[in-house]
Structure formats: C-alpha cells, structure tokens
C-alpha cells in the first residue's frame, strides 16, 4: 500500500479507471501536457493519448454539454472544470441538463458523467477560485454531490463516481491537495455514496462537516480536549445522497451538534443539516444545532480570507457555546 496525498489519489483513480475501461476519457482546460493546474491529471496524456485526454477550448458550458453528448455516444467522460466557481459559466448545462436528462428523456438516456472541480479557500487564490458553491447544486436534483476530505476517500469516491450511471459533481478541496498523505491502496476500490463516516469518536457533541472543513473540525476536536470536551467528527462525504440515518443517529447520541462549512452561512448546506436534525431528532437535542460558516458576503480578496472562513477559534467557540446551552 502506498502513501498518497489527494492529488496522487485522484491521479491514481483516473489512471486506473482509464486503464480498466477504454470508454473513460478526461477532458477540460489544461488537463493534457500540463496535467491540470494542480497536476491531478499529470502523465495521463502520455499514457492514454490525446484522444482520451483532451485539452478543450476555454468554455465551461461547452465542456459540460459535450460531456453529456459524449456519454450518450457511449464514452464515460470525466470532465474537469478548472475551479468550482467556474461551474457558473456552465450552470445551465449542469442542473437543467445533465442532472435532468434521464427525466427529460423519460428514462431513455442517462448521463454517466463525472465533473471534477477543485475549490476552497486557504491557499490565497485569485478571485472566484475559492468559492464553495456546492449547496447551489443541491437544488438541482438528479446530480450527486461528492465532497471528499482525505486521500483514501478521494480515490474511492472518484472511482465510484466514474462508475455511477448518473452524473456526479466531484468537488476537490484544493487546500488539502498536497496535505497529509495517507494509505491509499493501488488498484481499484470504491467508497459508497451516501455513507457518512465518523472520523473521530466523541461523546458530548458532534461536529458535522465535509471536504476541507473536516480537517478543521478534527483540529477543533483536538483543541477541545483541553476544555474536557469530547467531540465526535462526522464527515458527510456526499451531500446528495445524504446519509440522514447516520447523521441523525450520531447527533441523537451526543445530543449536541455544530455544523461547519466554508460556504456562506445563509442557505448553505449547513441549513439543510440543521433542518433535517430539527425534523428527525428534535427531542434528542440538548441544545440547538449551531452552524459555523463563512459570512454572508462574497469571498473576499485572499488577504482577508482567514477572517472570512470559519477559523479554529470560531469553531471552538461555537462548540463551547453549544456545550453551555
């Protein structure tokens, strides 16, 4: 077993699926010789040729729309949108088309398409590159939304995504791309969608997160030990499908919950978590579910991102307040 970071885990998932299935192809901006701006597709064009690893024109709607058509032709496209914020340019090809195409065609066609996109703050990116807009797609049912937080999951979830007959939006936490390596097996394996993972046990409060915020929550849980607070951390892994069962069972157990995400507070996916808990485990709650999120303003210039994003201090403070409530 090899130690890999997320970039390597993703590269390995792509290479293995391309090896195993000649229909799998990669397309997007700079995915060829450059290997992607973060090098996630590094080496693929040399190995699989320019017919299957395609540098496309700079046109996000074109990339997504073409992927839909490629899938109907029997290919299995894995499209890269250079940054999640630029899914906006292809928005009308994602929710209203890709996600809806099975329904639109009364089930005659389906779209086995994966859209990969890095996102997230913390690496001093230029404007639009950090925007965490995952919740916007939840209102477009038909597409699954996958948010890995670590190398093992990144590989297993990506292989699951590529093999899923339905479209998947696969959001990669660029802040963690070259972060801590962990054991990532060679060879194909899948991590199922809709199965949240308890990444840290804890008795008194559950921190719920996905993507890079999981790492933040783990740090917060560590810090809280000093206060004598035992915090569990639940990694949702996928927003659609949502693992309501594990979420509710876990929060019912601790009676307290703090949701953490890097997108703005209002109508972020944290709201859905809180509302779901309200409906399902209201009577098991010892305190109101709290949210820690970015503020309700656009992502600021990188010089200010540390104040904008949920910080360790804000998470810890929210947990303390929840414990006292």
């Amino acid at each position, binding site marked *: 077993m090899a130690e890999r970071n997320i970039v390597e885990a993703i590269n390995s998932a792509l290479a293995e699926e391309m090896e195993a299935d000649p229909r799998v192809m990669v397309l997007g901006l700079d995915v060829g010789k450059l290997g992607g701006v973060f090098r996630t597709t590094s080496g693929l064009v040399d190995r699989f040729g320019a017919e299957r690893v395609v540098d496309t024109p700079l*046109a996000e709607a074109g990339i997504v729309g073409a992927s*839909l*058509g490629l899938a109907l032709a029997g290919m299995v496209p894995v499209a890269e949108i250079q940054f999640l914020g630029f899914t906006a340019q292809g928005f009308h090809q994602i929710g209203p088309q890709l996600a809806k195409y099975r329904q639109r065609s009364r089930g005659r066609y389906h779209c086995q398409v994966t859209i990969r996109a890095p996102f997230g703050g913390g690496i001093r990116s230029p404007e639009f590159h950090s925007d965490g807009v995952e919740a916007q797609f939840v209102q477009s049912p038909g597409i699954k939304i996958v948010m890995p937080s670590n190398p093992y999951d990144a590989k297993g979830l990506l292989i699951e995504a590529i093999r899923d007959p339905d479209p998947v939006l696969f959001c990669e936490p660029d802040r963690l791309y070259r972060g801590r390596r962990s054991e990532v097996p060679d060879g194909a394996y899948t991590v199922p969608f809709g199965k949240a993972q308890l990444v840290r046990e804890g008795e008194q409060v559950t921190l719920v997160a996905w993507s890079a915020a999981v790492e933040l929550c783990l740090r917060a849980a560590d810090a809280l030990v000093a206060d004598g607070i035992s915090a569990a951390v639940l990694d949702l892994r996928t927003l659609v499908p949502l693992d309501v069962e594990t979420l509710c069972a876990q929060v019912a157990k601790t009676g307290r919950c703090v949701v953490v995400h890097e997108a703005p507070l209002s109508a972020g996916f944290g709201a859905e978590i809180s509302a779901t808990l309200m409906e399902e485990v209201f009577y098991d709650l010892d305190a109101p579910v709290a949210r820690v999120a970015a503020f309700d303003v656009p992502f600021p210039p990188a010089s200010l991102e540390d104040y904008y994003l949920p910080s360790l201090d804000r998470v810890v403070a929210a947990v303390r307040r929840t414990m006292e409530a």
Partner: protein
Amino acid sequence: MSPRTAPSKNRAVQARRSVLLADGTIAHGARPRMEEEFLLEALRWMMKSRLYDQKVIALQRQGLFGVYSPGIGQEACIIGSAMAVDPVRDWMVPQYRELMATVHHGLPLEVITAQYLGKIGPARIPEGVKVLPTQVSIAAQLPQATGLAWGLRLRRQDSVVITYVGDGGSSEGDFHEGLNLAGVTRAPIVFFLSNNQWAISTSRKVQTATRNFALRAAGYGFEGVEVDGNDVMAVYDVTCEAVERARSGGGPSLIAAETYRMSFHNTTDNPSRYQDQKDYDEARSRDPIERVQKYLAGLGLWDAKREAQWTEEIREENERAMKMATEAPAPRPEDVFANVYEEPPPRVIRQRADLVDGQGG
C-alpha cells in the same frame, strides 16, 4: 445543383442556394439531386407535417393539447434536411419546432405526441431510434450534439449528427461554444439553422447585425452555406453535401436556411401584436409546399384529386397516432419520481412512499 452565383474561394460563404423557385420552376442552370419519386415522398412528408400542425392547433384550442410550436412554413427545412440523413446510422438532435424531422428519422408520431400530452412511458423514445429528446432550453442541444458527434467518432461509428437551432438560438453562448468545439474536434456534425425570422416576437433584424448567419462558420474554421429554406430541393442538396463532408472526415458544416415562421411562435402567442401583415403575406407567396405542388403539376404528377386523396390519407395516419397517444396510459402520481436516478437516494425513496401513501389514504 447550382448556386445563384458561382461560389468563390475568396468569399467566406457561398451564395445562397436555390433550386426550386417560389413559382414552381427550376432555377436557371440548377440540376436537382432529388428525383421525382423522391420529391413526391418529400411532398408527402411536408403535407404530413402541416396537417399534423393544423390538427394539433385545433386540439389545443379545445384544451386537448399542451403548448405547441408548429412548423408551418418551415416544412422544406424540416423535411429536406431530415431526408439527407440516414436514420439507421445518423443521429438527430432536435430543438422543438422540427418535430416531423424526428418522425422522419424514426420516432413514432404517437410517441412524440404522447410527450406533448404529458405521458411518461408512452413518450419514451424507443431503443434503436437515434433521436434525442426535444430541447426547450434554447441552444443547449448544440454542445451536446457536438459531444455526441465527437463521441461517435471516438467509438468508431459511421455516424453523422444533425442538429437544429433557430435564429434566436444563434445568439446564445451555447451556439458559440458548441460550434467552436465542433470545429476543433472536427466532429461529424451538421448544424442546421432555421432562420424563420422570429424568436417569439423578436425580429431577426434585431437578433444580430450579421448579413448572413452562414458567415459565422468561418469563425469556427468550417463550411457555412446559405440556402433558400423554403426550397426543399435546395435544402436537401446542401444538407446532403454537408452530411457527406462530415461522413468523409471533412468536419462540421453550418447551414443557414432562410425561411419564415408562417404561424405563431406557439399556441400561447399572438403575432398580430408584433408582426407586419405584409411580411406574412410575402412569406405566404413563397410557401414551400405549394411550390412543390406547382412543379409536380407541371410534370403532370399532381392535381386536385391527388391532393384530396393524400390529405385524407395523411389525416387518417396522423389521427391514428394521436388516438394511440391519447389512449396510452396517463402518468401515475408516483411517476413524479420516475427516471431521475438509477438508484434513488433514501430520502427520495421516502418522499415517494409518502406521496403514494398520501394518495392511497
């Protein structure tokens, strides 16, 4: 066939193609590809298209049909282009107005009718029919069609894609992204632009300042050709050429067909608010069906009797399809959840159960 003026290498676009003139005579020097037998077949399909539209409009007025956009006046585009592709090998990616083209391509009329009646299962395109669903999101079909054509080539299939778009749709970003990508990938595709002069109430004159939509092709590195879109023989010719080009590895083409929407945008529209009667009358004088009938009459192949007989036969055919569609099972409430996921998420399964229970109880 012969363009009005000789094509010149120096011009970004060939002169407008014309074969069968509005008065039912053949343009000077034109040598039509369509032989008489075939032209009769084209006429029958054009009449079928018009008669179907007329029937639907009548039904819609009685509340028996959904919102519908007729192809009246555009039958030469609809049929001439469809006859140039091969339903066995080639794929058709429609917008919404070229309904009878998809029927010509193998989609049963009762199936597409069932779609307008809100049916689910009975509205599913049958396996083997190489047609994509009607597209209501203007121009969204274009990058999809490019991807399809590109993918078919990657899959080493001997297939060409034909896709339709309107003068309105030509302004969408998707038009640009779809055509540019087709140029880059040299995808085997024909973009058929039906310039019917209107996007709902918006005149082609304010849709774009270009003289000619075919000029756009040069900006994507492929062939553009303008054609009299009320001339089924010319439409057939230029589409055949484009299909041959695509099939032989020559890449995409853009066909700009000049036609006229001789009816409303759709059954909720009222063109008297914005359309000049003169323009409409002028268009009527260039009717794509009448000119074929005149030409065939000149050859002794068409007369009032034959017209009456065909009309009768086609009406029956169309009504049979409509009856089938009407009688096909209506959707059940739980069909709300049909055809969304291969395996629905638990939350959706629960919602479905709630709906079914609610209905049951």
